C-alpha cells in the first residue's frame, strides 16, 4: 500500500467523519441538554440538502450559487426546526422514553414523506462551481477539492461550537443545562426558551451539514435513514452532550470505515456496530461523556 493511496483514504475518512460530525453534533447537543434522542435529525439534514439544491437551482447561472445556498439552506432549515419544536417537540420533554422515541420517529416519517411530496422521487444533482471541479494534489494524492471545503467547514463548526460553549453567556447556560437542568431553572433562566433555542441551533447545524452534503454526491430520498443510525453510533462512542466526544467519535467512525473498506468491504459497517456495542458495554456514557447524566 503506497503512501499516496493511504493518504487519500485518510482524507476520505476525514471528510466522511467530519460530515458525520456535522450531523451528529446537533444530535448530541439536543440529547445532552434535553435528553431527547432525535430520530428525525438526519431528516432535517436531508431537508437542508434539498433546500440547498432548490436555492442553488434558482441561481445556478452564477458561480457563487452554491456558496450562497448553503447558509441560506441552514437558516431555512433552522426556521423549520424552530417551528417543529414549538408545535411538537415541546410537548414531549416530560414524557417517557418510549413516547419520545416514537414521536421523533414519527416526525422522521412525516418529514421524509414531505420531502417526497415537495421534491419528488428523482435524484437531484448540483453542478459544482468550477473552482472545485478539479482535484487538488496533496502529497501526490488526488484529493477531491470539495472535500477540503467539507473538512474546513467541519472544523469551523467544531471551533465555533467550542467558542460558543466556552466564552459566551448563552453557551455557559447551555453547558450548565447539560449538567443540571434543575439548577438552571432554579436560577430563573427560562428552560422552555433554552430548549427551543438549543433545538433550533441543533437543526441549524444539521441544515448546514445538509447544504454541504448536497454538493458531494446526488441528493436522494432515503439518505436520512442510512445516516441517522451512524450518527447515533458517533454520539454513543463519543459520549452524549460532549462536543469533544462527538468530534472524536465521528473521526473514529470515519477513519475506521474508510480503512475497513480496504480489508473487509462487507464488514465495514458491521465493525462500526461492534465498536458501538463494545463502548456501550464497557463505558455506556461514551469516551468523553459524564456518568452523572443517565
Amino acid at each position, binding site marked *: 500500500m503506497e503512501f499516496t493511496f493511504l493518504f487519500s483514504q485518510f482524507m476520505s475518512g476525514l471528510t466522511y467523519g467530519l460530515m458525520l460530525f456535522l450531523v451528529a453534533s446537533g444530535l448530541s447537543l439536543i440529547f445532552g441538554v434535553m435528553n431527547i434522542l432525535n430520530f428525525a435529525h438526519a431528516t432535517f439534514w436531508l431537508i437542508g440538502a434539498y433546500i440547498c439544491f432548490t436555492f442553488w437551482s434558482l441561481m445556478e447561472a452564477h458561480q457563487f450559487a452554491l456558496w450562497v445556498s448553503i447558509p441560506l439552506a441552514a437558516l431555512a432549515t433552522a426556521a423549520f426546526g424552530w417551528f417543529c419544536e414549538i408545535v411538537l417537540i415541546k410537548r414531549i420533554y416530560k414524557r417517557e422514553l*418510549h413516547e419520545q422515541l416514537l*414521536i421523533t420517529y*414519527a416526525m422522521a*416519517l412525516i418529514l421524509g414523506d414531505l420531502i*417526497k411530496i415537495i421534491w419528488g422521487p428523482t435524484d437531484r444533482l448540483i453542478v459544482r462551481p468550477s473552482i472545485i471541479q478539479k482535484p487538488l494534489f496533496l502529497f501526490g494524492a488526488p484529493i477531491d477539492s470539495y472535500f477540503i471545503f467539507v473538512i474546513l467547514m467541519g472544523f469551523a463548526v467544531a471551533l465555533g461550537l467550542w467558542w460558543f460553549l466556552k466564552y459566551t453567556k448563552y453557551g455557559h447556560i447551555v453547558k450548565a443545562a447539560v449538567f443540571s437542568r434543575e439548577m438552571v431553572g432554579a436560577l430563573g433562566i427560562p428552560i422552555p426558551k433554552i430548549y427551543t433555542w438549543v433545538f433550533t441551533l441543533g437543526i441549524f447545524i444539521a441544515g448546514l451539514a445538509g447544504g454541504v452534503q448536497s454538493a458531494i454526491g446526488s441528493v436522494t430520498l432515503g439518505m436520512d435513514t442510512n445516516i441517522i443510525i451512524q450518527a447515533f*453510533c458517533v454520539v454513543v462512542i463519543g459520549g452524549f452532550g460532549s462536543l469533544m466526544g462527538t468530534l472524536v467519535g465521528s473521526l473514529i467512525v470515519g477513519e475506521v470505515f474508510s480503512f475497513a473498506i480496504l480489508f473487509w468491504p*462487507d464488514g465495514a459497517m458491521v465493525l462500526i456496530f461492534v465498536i458501538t*456495542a463494545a463502548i456501550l458495554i464497557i463505558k455506556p456514557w461514551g469516551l468523553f461523556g459524564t456518568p452523572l447524566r443517565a
Partner: protein
Amino acid sequence: MDKKNSFLKRFWLPALLFFIALILPLVVAEFWVHVFNEILILGLFAAAFNLIFGYMGQLSFGQAAYYGIGAYTTGLLMVKLQWPLFACLPVSMITAGIGALILGYFCVKLRGIYFAILTMAFGQLVFFILFQWYSFTGGDNGLQGINPPVWLFKANAYYYFSLAVVTIGMIALYFITESPFGYTLRAIRDNTERTEFIGINVQRYMLINFVISGMFCGLAGALWGPFNRSVAPDLSSWQNSGHPVFMAVMGGPHHFLGPMIGSVIFTFLNAFVTGFTEYWPLVSGVVMIIVVLLMPGGLFGIIKSKGYFSSRDVGDVKNE
C-alpha cells in the same frame, strides 16, 4: 358448569376474537385474508416484544433482529435444504433464542436509554450481516422461492395454519405472563431494586426473558417467510423494530391482548391506506403522534378508564 361460566367470564374477549378469526376467510375476499394473516404474524411479534416492554419495563428497539433470524432460518432451511415447514419452526425458535442469548447477555447489563440504544445497535448489526453476507443470505436480494407445502399454498390454508401457530404461541405467552416468572417480571418493572432485595438475580431474569421474547419473535419471523414467499434483510431493520413498539403502545402495553389489537389496527390501516396513497409513512407518522400524545395506555388504557373492564388485565387472574 360453574367452571365453564367463569372461564368465559374471564376470557370472553380472546374467545370472541378467536371466533371472529375463524370465520373471517369465509366472509372476506382473499386480499383481506392476506391482511389478517399478516396481522396474526405481526401480532405475535408485538406480543413477544411486549414481554420485555409492558411486563418488564424496558424498551428494546431491536427485536426485529430475532424476527429476522427466525425468518432467515426457516427460509434457508426450506430453500437450501428442502426441510419441511413444520420442522423449521422450532429450529427458528432455537436460532433466534441463541441470538437473543448472545446479544442479550450484553444488553441486560444496561437499563433505560442505554439498553434501548444497545438493542438498536445490535439490531443494525444483524441487519448488516444479513445485508452483506451475500453468499449465505443472498445479501440485499434476500431469499426468494420460500414456498410452503402444497396443502398450505392457498391463502386460506396458510391463514388457518398461521392462526393455529399464533394461537398456540399466544397461549404459551399468556401462561408465561401469569406464572411466577411473569409476576417476577412485573416486580422487576415496578421496582428493580426491591426485587434484588427479595433475593432475585435481576440480570439473570432479564436475560431469560430476553431469550423467551427472542424465541417467539423468531417464531413470528419463521411464519413470515413462507407467507411472503421471500425474506429480505429489512426484516431486521430498525424501522421494523419500531413496528412492535408502536403496536404495543397503540393497543396498550399493560394488557396481554394490547399488542395484538395494536397489530390489528396498524396492519389494517396500512393495508387500507396503501390502497389509495403512496404516503403511508406520512399517515402512520401522524397516527403515531396522535396515539402517543392523546391515548396514554393505548386502546385498552382508554377502555379501562371508562370502566368497561372491571379487572386490571383482560383475562387477569383475580386473587380471591
